[in-house]
């Protein structure tokens, strides 16, 4: 704690005290996240297919939130590491404690072939950021096998790809017509 400025009497000069608190949380990853993480290390992207509605979730959480039914190991299938950008924005990073980004970056949603749920917050590389567009055909850029790890996984949110994949790059193929992914836009 550091005392920045103090005054007990002058009403126009409030006392300001910085009180920095550090709390540590140790998350235990659930089994489906561990299997997903191990899949990334092995070069696979594992999805979970709901036994009821047949939707395929990438980074499955062990249940389908739409049907509210459990999805176990038997529901798991591999999905492709290629897909389409369904929506994006370009973000100018805001400064805050812990932020390491300094340059504008692309924040894109990617729908992998065979998946029903989009992966939000993906970086698109190998193309100028002002050339990123909806409908862009992209392929995962894998880390070298020896560099893959358990990075980014947590018990919250949809699964992170960071343990195996650094981002997505343009495949060079023609854009996907909007009609083909419109249902999943953004």
């Amino acid at each position, binding site marked *: 704690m550091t005392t920045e400025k103090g005054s007990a009497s002058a009403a126009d000069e409030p006392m300001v005290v910085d009180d920095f*608190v550090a*709390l*540590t949380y140790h998350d*235990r990853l659930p089994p489906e996240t561990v299997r997903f993480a191990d899949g990334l290390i092995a070069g696979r992207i594992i999805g979970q297919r709901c036994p009821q509605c047949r939707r395929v979730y990438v980074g499955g959480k062990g*249940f389908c*939130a739409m049907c*509210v039914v459990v999805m176990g190991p038997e529901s798991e299938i591999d999905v492709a590491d290629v897909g389409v950008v369904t929506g994006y924005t370009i973000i100018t990073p805001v400064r805050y404690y812990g932020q390491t980004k300094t340059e504008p970056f692309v924040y894109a949603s990617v729908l992998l072939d065979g998946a029903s749920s989009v992966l939000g917050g993906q970086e698109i590389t190998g193309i100028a950021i002002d050339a990123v567009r909806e409908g862009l055909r992209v392929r995962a850029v894998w880390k070298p096998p020896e560099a893959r790890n358990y990075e980014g996984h947590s018990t919250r949110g949809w699964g992170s790809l960071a343990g195996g994949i650094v981002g997505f790059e343009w495949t060079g193929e023609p854009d996907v017509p909007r009609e083909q992914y419109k249902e999943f836009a953004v």
Partner: protein
Amino acid sequence: MPADDIAIVGWGQTPSVASTDLTEPQLCLAAVNDALAMANIDRHAIGFTCSGSCDYLSGGPFVFISNLEAAGAWPPISESHVEMDGAWALYEAWVRIQHGDIDFALVYGSGKSSPSDPALLFPQQLDPYYLEPLGLDPASLMGMQARALLDSGTATERDFAAVAARSRRAGAANPKAQTLPNGAGESDLDIDALLAAPYVRAPLRAHDLAPAADGAAAVVLATPAKARELTDHPVFIRGIDHRLEPHQPGVRDLADSPSTRLAAQKAGLGANGGGVGVAELYATSSAQELILRAALGLGPDVSVNPSGGALCSDPVMATGLVRIIEAAQRVADGTTRRAVAHAVNGQVLQHNLVCVLEGER
């Protein structure tokens, strides 16, 4: 005052464990699905949903948004959330169902204590200007409270140990409670053994303090008419109320719980425990149980915490709702015709909720 006695027609709770691999949404899912199955209604019959959870406990902003995925929020639902124990979510749902335009409400509360250290976390719940910088942990505050109770001359350390021994024996028979050592006896010898343990915060020993746990609980509420359609043994909420005390422990008599007494009065509990056969009290220390018994006027004939209570399992943010479930269970199965459940919010009994449950008149 509202006229309708809303009924509890279904409930579910996960086993409380010190640490689970399941995520909080998965815990919620299990509890919610059990509650709906017991009520024997489809989730789309629910007219209002309310949950209780805490971002700080779970370690991220908006934890209730993830938990929502367990509630079946598609198609969209009418829903709210309290940053409190699920017992207060039940209160909000009870208010909502009074309007008469819905038949059923779903309530759930959840929390995972295992990822963090309560001694470091809970000081963040205190006044940030005057108390938090002191680093006061919950056990220390409870120790001060237990000391105040001893100094009042109404209880002894042996009374504390007797509460712990009785709770542990009860908890050993509860499959949802944690399995704790020394769980099977409440003889003088058992109590002597507990008293031989070292202090954690004098005058409290480890068995005097609730073990934080991971868990979730869910309840389905129904209008009286719907409840009678669904079950021959509806459990009615005859009264429910909650009251707050000042935050600063220094301005309160920690050996008493006037807010519990007031909430009980407003909930229509009645004098001398109001004839309840069972009381489920959210006491996070053995001393607190004694304080709550006195505030509610519970006599020696009342079965207190037959589930084992929070001293066996404290799935924070669900524990209060679990008390209501355990009390309702004992009304439903005929153990008692009338029961009282209590829940707490904040530290050393700052904010207390009292719920009076009965079977058919």
